[in-house]
């Protein structure tokens, strides 16, 4: 069974379990992988039907599974390359008489990989993204791109290297025209343009918003339209600066899942770097997280197998520090810090998360929230 068929099978399972919301987006991903216009047409028609008949879930599931079976029968050429698409070596950038220096940063990115770029404000996230997008010149180091088209001109390179700033520019004119204009400029076949645009609109959940004006969209949908426009360009590298800003938690999760899913396309994967303040969410989907502090990137050293890592927990509780110290006295606690709202608990390598939960439960400590951040970059923030 090919990767494509496996995915189709997963989606069928989603529908069988009535996970329609997630399933439908995954269905569209599979449909897009086929690059088959008949499938596109059916998927678009199905989206239209779905929006017009929101309460007919049974029929929808039935029709969707039928379409998925068709999709599964179409051969999808898999993208198999382990070559990097972007390789940055010892990149630095100095601003204003070396008052701020970014880097040196080195990273290697392959298609299908998602990198999260985190760090507090003013630590150089945007600068790094703009350098990688060739918007800003770097002071030293080398930047190497390896695109499908070999030896492109600088301009051609930038047609495949898309950077979306945090504040996207306003769109003028009809939203659909803006999307059609992209494909037309990229030399897509005229008869396929409309279908491809509608497919992307459907995929990003913009079906009911496609006839609105830019000014009538919420910031979340503006970001989605911007993403639609960008994805139509079939970028090889996509650099997103704070795509989650101004989005509510649910929308953040959805868009991240979408990004992950689109970046992981079977036949057209994208190398994606996104910056964000939403650590957990970004960590969840990223293959690697780059944490910038004062412009510096310290790649965490891999833990040696003999050395057990420290267990670091984040706890929100109304209990006092003394009560907590008492509770954990038997669990080899190393340190408790309190930042006014949240306790940070540091245990030696012997203690497990379950031991801590058990101790808290037995002592009836009121908990609002607890999280294991031992492997998360969150621990750098609290430090």
């Amino acid at each position, binding site marked *: 069974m090919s990767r494509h068929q496996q995915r189709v099978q997963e989606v069928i399972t989603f529908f069988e379990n009535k996970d329609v919301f997630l399933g439908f987006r995954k269905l569209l991903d599979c449909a897009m992988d086929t690059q088959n216009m008949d499938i596109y047409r059916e998927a678009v028609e199905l989206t239209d039907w779905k929006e017009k008949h929101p309460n007919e879930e049974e029929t929808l599931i039935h029709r969707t599974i039928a379409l998925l079976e068709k999709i599964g029968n179409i051969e999808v050429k898999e993208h198999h390359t382990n070559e990097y698409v972007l390789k940055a070596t010892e990149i630095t950038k100095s601003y204003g008489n070396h008052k701020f220096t970014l880097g040196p940063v080195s990273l290697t990115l392959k298609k299908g990989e998602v990198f999260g770029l985190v760090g507090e404000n003013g630590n150089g996230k945007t600068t790094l993204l703009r350098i990688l997008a060739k918007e*800003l010149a770097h002071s030293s180091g080398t930047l190497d791109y390896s695109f499908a088209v070999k030896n492109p001109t*600088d*301009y051609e390179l930038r047609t495949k290297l898309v950077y979306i700033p945090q504040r996207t520019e306003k769109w003028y004119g009809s939203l659909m025209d803006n999307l059609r204009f992209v494909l037309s*400029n990229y030399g897509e076949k005229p008869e396929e343009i409309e279908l491809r645009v509608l497919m992307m609109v459907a995929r990003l959940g913009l079906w009911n918003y496609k006839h609105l004006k830019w000014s009538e969209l919420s910031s979340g949908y503006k970001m989605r339209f911007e993403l639609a426009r960008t994805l139509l360009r079939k970028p090889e590298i996509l650099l997103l600066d704070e795509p989650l800003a101004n989005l509510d938690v649910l929308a953040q999760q959805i868009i991240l899942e979408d990004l992950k899913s689109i970046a992981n396309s079977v036949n057209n994967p994208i190398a994606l770097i996104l910056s964000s303040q939403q650590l957990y969410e970004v960590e969840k989907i990223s293959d690697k997280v780059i944490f910038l502090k004062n412009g510096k990137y310290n790649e965490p050293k891999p833990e040696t197998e003999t050395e057990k890592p420290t267990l670091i927990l984040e706890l929100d509780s109304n209990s006092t520090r003394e009560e907590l110290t008492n509770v954990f006295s038997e669990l080899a606690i190393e340190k408790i810090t309190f930042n006014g709202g949240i306790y940070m608990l540091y245990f030696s390598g012997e203690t497990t998360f379950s031991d801590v939960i058990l101790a808290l439960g037995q002592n009836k400590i009121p908990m609002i929230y607890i999280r294991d951040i031992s492997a998360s970059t969150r621990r750098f923030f609290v430090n």
Partner: protein
Amino acid sequence: MNFINKINKYLIERFPTIWNTKIVWILLISLLVHIIFFLIGYVSHTNPQTLHYGYIVGDYFKSGMILVHIIISLLMITGWLVAMFKNNAFKNFYPVSRTQLFGQFLCYFIIIFCSVSFYFPYIAGLKMFISNKYPDDLMIKNVAVINKANAFLSTDYQSYQLSQRKYPQIFEELHCETNSDYIDYSKNHYAIRNEVYQFYSLYQKAVTQKNEYNEFLYPEEEQKKNIDFVSYQVRNDTCFYFYRKEVVDVSEYVKNAELSYYNFSRPFYTLSSGTSSNRYDDYNDPYYPLPQNDAQLNQQIIKLLDRSNPEEIKQILDDFLHISKQLKIKTNLNTNDWFKIVYHPDNFEVKQFIYNNFNFDLNSYDAEAVVEAATANASEAVIAEEAVSRNSTYYFFKNNHTNYFYETGTLKNTLVNIDSMKNYDFISQNIHIYLWLSFILSALIFSFRVTNLRTVIFTGITTGVLSLLVGLISLMYSLSVSSYNVEYFTSYFILALGFIILSIPVFMPKSGSKLFRGILINMSILGFVPYVFLILGIITMHQKDACREVYNYSDCFILLQWLDSTTTSWILLTTGFIFLLIYTSVIKKWRALPE
């Protein structure tokens, strides 16, 4: 609306640049406006009275059409820019080839040209109306009638003096002397009132030598004898001087020196012959090219008068008044009364005169009195006027006016207007203004589209500062070093500066900030054509100066004189387009480089 959307969708999917520039719609709108202007031009002069005043081409500016034109052009260009600025593939890094980029510029050029050139359809409409309403064959017929009948329209007396006689052929070869200093009273001459006429045969002297001021020398013999010439003609490199030879007896043809219709030889109007000639360019008088006396007309009149057929003459007068009525020329003449003024079959002497204006005031046009007053003091003027006027033909003319009038000036204006409009080459005369206006505007818009507003504004500021710098340095040079060749200094200084500005983005695409290079790119886009013109100017300046040292100035090859203004304009325009086509690669490189 559905139709528009369909077309738009078709264009956006196939021709993104065409769709983005909205050229299809703007050309459709401008076609509509062109048609409207053509129709306005066509109907603007349906009333012949609109042809009564000079230079109808100027009506476009006088009547306020130009204002309507400017407002429509501004509205169209603004609306177009708003629509076009909604999308910019190049700024968004969509794949744009060099040809597409140049294509965008070409679209801007075509759009602007079509949005500012409403003058042409207006004039074309007017021209077509004139050609339809006053076709050539009708005009040939009418002018023939007018020229003949005009002989009887005695609005002046000079046309009827003996000196105007041109037929039989002998009169064409003779010189009629009216200056009493040269009259030989012992030989055949004619005197009337205080005027005297005598006919001389002439001999000519050809001169080819010139003096140091490049003027023809005066024939040596005549200079020694102190003989005045009658007239001279320059043909190629030779000047022909004409001198009085001997008095010729013309009594066979001339009985007396009375004012007579027999002497009339001046055509009222001669139709311009070819389409290439343009009456507005007439060297001597831009609006009233005076027709030369014409033996043929004189012959026609003489034969007509010899036949002395009242009906024939009446018919001519009647035809003339009919044409005048059609052209709405003001007159109170009628055929019968006019015929009575004219018809004196004994010698067809001119006995009565007609005013040439509705409210003609002879005193205000008292030309002779004005001349006298200008040359003598007041009391002498009165005496002189009295003495001269009592016995002058002018006095006779003044005292023998009827109450009839005919506006000859209006008729002439009308004929000139009709004739010149038919032959008016309005395209090659004016197209360059509109072409250059379009080129400059489209280059400016192109600059803005490929760079950004900030760069364009800084380009303006930089250009201003550089101009100031050039001015100051030139001033310092002229004050401190030499004011003699400051033109050369300034020209070469700008040449060097221009070279640097043009070179940096091409040869050093990574030097300086992106803004700095953007400014240089904008200056190159807008300044390349003036730069080429400067080079042509410098070459011309050198040639002219070198030529000054050579005696025969006319033999020199001077570039900008050799290329007339139209050719220069075409060459520069082509250069501008070719430059932009090539320069698109520099623009693309600049756009892709990081800040």
